[in-house]
């Protein structure tokens, strides 16, 4: 029989109950997914709201990516709950002093917002397909029109206003959603590793870079799969965004880490033991050097040299992959790392991965891959590649 729990080995003194980690890799995946949502939405908004024309080729794709990812955001939480069937208790009787109680509302609101914006953006295409197609797919499109077949210029103008408004509301919603995730950790006073006012902002900036990086990778992958030429101006635009935000993220993390060490409050000895021991590989080497400094150097070089063509594309994609990995490691180092430092301030625990089981690596990986599978299906029904609004200025 599978053991009911896994106890982690420790050194020094840890409270007996701490040997079973409350939060597993699933809770690493949860902020990772919400971060990708917020980041992808940012890219979409850069076009829809801020008029970054060069991002037009990915704007709608970014919106669909955000939607598909968001649909799966609650899954790691549900998988992790002891009683997932009671999950709605948090929405039916929210305990208003709890950061987590508000999640259901923010998430539900944001999913609705994304669906609405997607509907407006793809409405002309949906109407066209509803009129052209027969059979079950035609029926799906006809239902998706919600009875509205008006694609006149006047209606389109109306739609554009809605899209703009939703995109504007979506910016604080997406960033609020992710900033709130940072607050879930940063507001806890029980762990020095988490307890930081900067946590929400750090989560936010890492979210933006991870979402942009994901779009870079998915966009290039989609071009390759569809045998379409990559719009290098667009790709470079996303590269710039990632590069700039990455520097912000690094500065913020540096400031937070520096302050933690410099303040040197109670328990700092064990934190230093952690930082100079078990954290060297996951933090300094993987998250910081490989995942953050390397892409900054690569991108800086590419932009400085004015590299074009395939080399630029490869450079940006490799950087994006590294950034995605870095942000995943950041989530890991926060969620798991925080629990590896005992609340006693006198001991360290070592997280042991589970492969199978609902809190295992495979489950977590499945949760990350599932939205991408959904996205690959959704783009068949709502192709974001060409501009679905012919009249769009």
């Amino acid at each position, binding site marked *: 029989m599978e053991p*009911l*729990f896994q*106890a982690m080995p420790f050194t*020094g*003194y*840890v*409270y*007996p*109950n*701490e*040997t*079973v980690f*409350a*939060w597993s890799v699933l809770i690493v995946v949860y902020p990772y997914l919400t971060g990708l949502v917020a980041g992808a939405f940012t890219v979409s908004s850069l076009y829809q709201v801020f008029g970054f024309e060069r991002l037009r080729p990915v704007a709608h794709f970014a919106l669909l990516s955000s939607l598909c990812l968001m649909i799966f955001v609650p899954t790691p*939480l549900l998988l*992790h*709950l*002891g*009683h*997932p069937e*009671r*999950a709605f*208790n*948090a929405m*039916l*009787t*929210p*305990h*208003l*002093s*709890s*950061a*987590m*109680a508000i*999640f259901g509302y923010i998430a539900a609101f944001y999913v609705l917002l994304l669906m609405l914006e997607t509907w407006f953006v793809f409405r002309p295409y949906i109407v066209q397909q509803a009129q052209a197609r027969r059979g079950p797919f035609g029926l799906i499109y006809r239902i998706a029109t919600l009875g509205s077949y008006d694609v006149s210029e006047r209606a389109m103008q109306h739609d554009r206003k809605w899209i703009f408004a939703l995109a504007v509301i979506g910016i604080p919603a997406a960033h609020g959603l992710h900033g709130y995730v940072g607050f*879930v950790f940063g507001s*806890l*006073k*029980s*762990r020095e590793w988490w307890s930081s006012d900067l946590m929400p902002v750090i989560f936010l900036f890492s979210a933006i870079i991870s979402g942009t990086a994901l779009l870079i990778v998915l966009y290039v992958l989609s071009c390759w799969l569809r045998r379409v030429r990559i719009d290098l101006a667009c790709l470079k635009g996303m590269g710039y965004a990632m590069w700039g935000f990455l520097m912000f993220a690094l500065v913020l993390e540096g400031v937070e880490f520096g302050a933690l060490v410099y303040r040197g409050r109670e328990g700092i000895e064990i934190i230093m033991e952690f930082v100079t021991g078990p954290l060297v590989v996951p933090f300094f080497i993987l998250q910081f050097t490989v995942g953050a400094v390397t892409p900054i150097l690569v991108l800086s070089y590419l932009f400085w040299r004015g590299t074009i063509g395939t080399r630029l594309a490869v450079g940006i994609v490799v950087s994006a992959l590294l950034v995605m990995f870095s942000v995943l490691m950041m989530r890991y180092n926060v969620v798991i790392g925080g*629990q590896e430092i005992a*609340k*006693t*301030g*006198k001991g360290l625990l070592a997280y042991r991965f589970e492969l199978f089981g609902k809190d295992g690596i495979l489950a977590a990986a499945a949760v990350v891959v599932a939205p991408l599978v959904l996205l690959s299906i959704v783009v068949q029904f709502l192709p974001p590649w060409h501009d679905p609004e012919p009249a769009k200025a």
Partner: protein
Amino acid sequence: MTKGTAMADQQAPPQQKPGRRNFLSLLGAAVGTGVAAVAAEAAPKPAIPNYDWGEHQWGYGVDATKCIGCLRCVEACKTENNVAGDAHHFRTWVERYVYLEGETSARIDSQADPVNIAASGSEGKYRFADRYKDAKVEKAFFVPKLCNHCTHPACVQVCPTGATFKTADGVVVIDHTYCIGCQYCVQACPYGARFFNEELHVTDKCTWCYHRITKGLNPACVEVCPVSARIFGDLKDKQSPISKFIKDNRVQVLKRESGNAPNVFYVGLDKEVI
């Protein structure tokens, strides 16, 4: 006692749903943050025969100078409350602090330490191994630990459903029929007092044996302590053991800086006690 339903059936006041009531009462009003944290104060009295929770305010004392580390309290608690019999789930535990000659900080372990388990022969048996017998011990003492039933409990603050709440008589309990098992409260507790009950898939913790104290009995750990290192009573009763304990001693609490305002009062702590 019915296995595995300790708090839901017998300890948590049965009428408790502060979150729900709180939500309804707030529907008409402006939603303010932090309001729900004090929801329990407005909760109706539980249907416990001959018990009025408005008449009591429970408190707990630990005289660390008396504790001999016999661990009968740990054993009694596990039995009384059906706590899993392994080395990773405790509603109460005992820490041993040992200063060896020439060392400036204490060596700390609890009954859950692998060395002590090896000495007892089983995770379900509790014993402190004589691990320092060949060293020169300068100072050594034991510190019993348990949930502090804080006045401002961080665990209650973060609970998304209101399943864990503070009763009017000052006890932090969990409604096992309403807890979703997110373990946010486990993270929030600075004392490591909470754990996940793998059998019921909910979080679990000390209730000061609410099912006993509401019948006029002592918590099991207090009952079995052979040296009266654990003290329990009603703070509203000036003649109760706890009131006298606080009055007669200079008491301390653990991690005061957390702002949780613990209600377990200690005598005989040391700078090393965490």
